[in-house]
């Protein structure tokens, strides 16, 4: 039983790394991505193929997966972000990128096509995963506290005003996309070496929607909100043994309800630490 609980927590944790990645981009620049599962897929396939054929060891493969996802994000990010597409056009362009990538993965020999890649070594331990989550959180926080992070938030709130005060929208958004893709790639690498089997259908629009749902439900502009949401999204249905289709139907319904009733999400712009601060200040008054 405890092995079962650990496996749920592992999956939720791996998903959390990707959600932190996506919230660096979507949560803090306000641009929606319907294709981040593609970056997870790139990370999973690059690192999976590298260790499967024993080209490199596990850690080098993880880093290669992150780098590959980042480079891929530049390929789609440079033209689309430079063209300053309408935000929904951007979401669709990146969706097209993700779908095209899946078709390519399904037809490459080195990835074993649509049948998937079985027998990748199981290397993802709870220690590696905890370290990855910590690294993702630390990077995300330092990025957001940096000059670029403030620029991202300014661009999200009012892109024209931000641009007029001297922020280079293109460079800020691209940097945040590259970092976010790197963490999605890391999450993919961890997933591949945890499940020891990957398949192109694991990285489609459905998965992109799930990631986006966690970020929106948790609250755009918060890191802890999406982390809590991603944990609830993975762990709760798994623990209750809900069938996949009912789970997805519930995600869909949840997205609609959030948009209609609480578009700011669970946490809004707040972090868990902010809530602790409120408690502390109340106690102080007493």
């Amino acid at each position, binding site marked *: 039983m405890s092995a079962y609980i650990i496996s749920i927590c592992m999956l939720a944790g791996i998903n959390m790394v990707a959600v932190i990645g996506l919230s660096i981009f979507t949560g803090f620049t306000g641009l*929606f991505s*319907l294709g981040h599962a593609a970056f997870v897929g790139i990370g999973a396939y690059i690192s999976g193929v590298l260790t499967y054929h024993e080209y490199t060891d596990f850690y080098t493969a993880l880093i290669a997966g992150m780098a590959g996802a980042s480079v891929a994000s530049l390929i*789609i990010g440079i*033209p*689309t972000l430079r*063209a300053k*597409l*309408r*935000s*929904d*056009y951007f*979401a*669709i*362009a990146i*969706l*097209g*990128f993700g*779908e*095209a990538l899946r*078709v*390519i993965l399904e*037809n490459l020999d080195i990835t074993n096509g649509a049948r998937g890649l079985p027998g990748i070594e199981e290397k993802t331990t709870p220690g590696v995963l905890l370290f990855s989550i910590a690294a993702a959180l630390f990077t995300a926080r330092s990025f957001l506290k940096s000059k670029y992070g403030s620029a991202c938030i300014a661009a999200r709130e009012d892109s*024209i005003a931000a641009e007029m005060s001297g922020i280079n929208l293109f460079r800020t958004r691209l940097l945040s996309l590259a970092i976010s893709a790197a963490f999605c790639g890391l999450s993919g690498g961890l997933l591949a070496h945890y499940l020891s089997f990957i398949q192109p259908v694991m990285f489609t*629009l*459905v998965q992109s*929607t799930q990631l*986006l*749902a966690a970020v*929106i439900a948790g609250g755009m502009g918060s890191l802890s909100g999406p982390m809590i949401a991603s944990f609830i999204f993975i762990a709760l249905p798994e623990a209750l043994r809900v*069938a996949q*289709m*009912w789970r*997805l*139907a519930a*995600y*869909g*319904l*949840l*997205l*609609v309800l959030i*948009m*209609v009733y609480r*578009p700011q999400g669970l946490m809004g712009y707040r972090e868990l630490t902010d809530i602790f601060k409120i408690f502390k200040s109340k106690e102080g008054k007493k």
Partner: protein
Amino acid sequence: MLFLQTLVTGLSVGGIYALMAVGYSLVFSVLSFSNFAHGAVIMLGAYIGLGLAAKLNLGLGLVLSGSIAGAGIIAVLNERLAYRALRQRRAPSLYLMISAMGCSVFLENMVYATIGSRFYSFPKLFDHQVVEIAGSALSLLDLAAFGVSLISIYALHIFIMKTRMGIAIRAGVDDLTMCSLMGVNTNRLISVVFFLAGAFAGIAGIFLGIKYLVYPTMGWVTNKAYIAAVIGGLGSLPGALIGGLILGVLETFVSVYVSSIMRDVFSFTLLIILLIWLPNGLLGHEAEEKV
């Protein structure tokens, strides 16, 4: 005569793309957001048609009208429940798009959970004959799909140009707020727009179902319809028709003369290139995001 045959197949595929693209464009022209739930409405239209044809043994005409009415009502309900509150709050169009994504995921998986993931084929509604024209075999179904899409899009064009409701819709496309100040009931107008989009989804669903199969994720083909709408210019009806035909023909030629695997990669690459360099499409209006 492989060339002629490829061309006709391409046009018939393009006709179906155009039927789907019209639904996208109608909604986009009035509310300027991409209605991702359209694919799910097409899928439900196909299931309604399948139910009428297989369980009640109705003919093509009744199946088509049942599916048109059913899909139309579903589209109207979809707008009432998932978009209206957002619209009245003047939420950013992206919120509407996410809500639409949510609807699509919800409806698809409800069908999975209740009807199941089985692939169904339509019972024979009319002879799947092959006619010979100029030495090449052309399927009657392909010709019918092409013909029906042309006729129905033309009928929609007449409706929008000639009737009072059509004039109101065109005014709404121009400026919805001004339109409501002039005494048009905008909620009703938007319901009519969604009903029309749903009706076209119903027709598209039937032809998709006959040509391929009926299954819960069949609505994903609407990604292609979306590309078609972008080619023609989102929000433009003639654009949707032209875009659909161009995409259908190009795709069929790529899959016949290059490779069928490259077909989808080609379409999605085309989409990205178009969005970057020609975001307004061939016939679209200026579509800058308003400040």
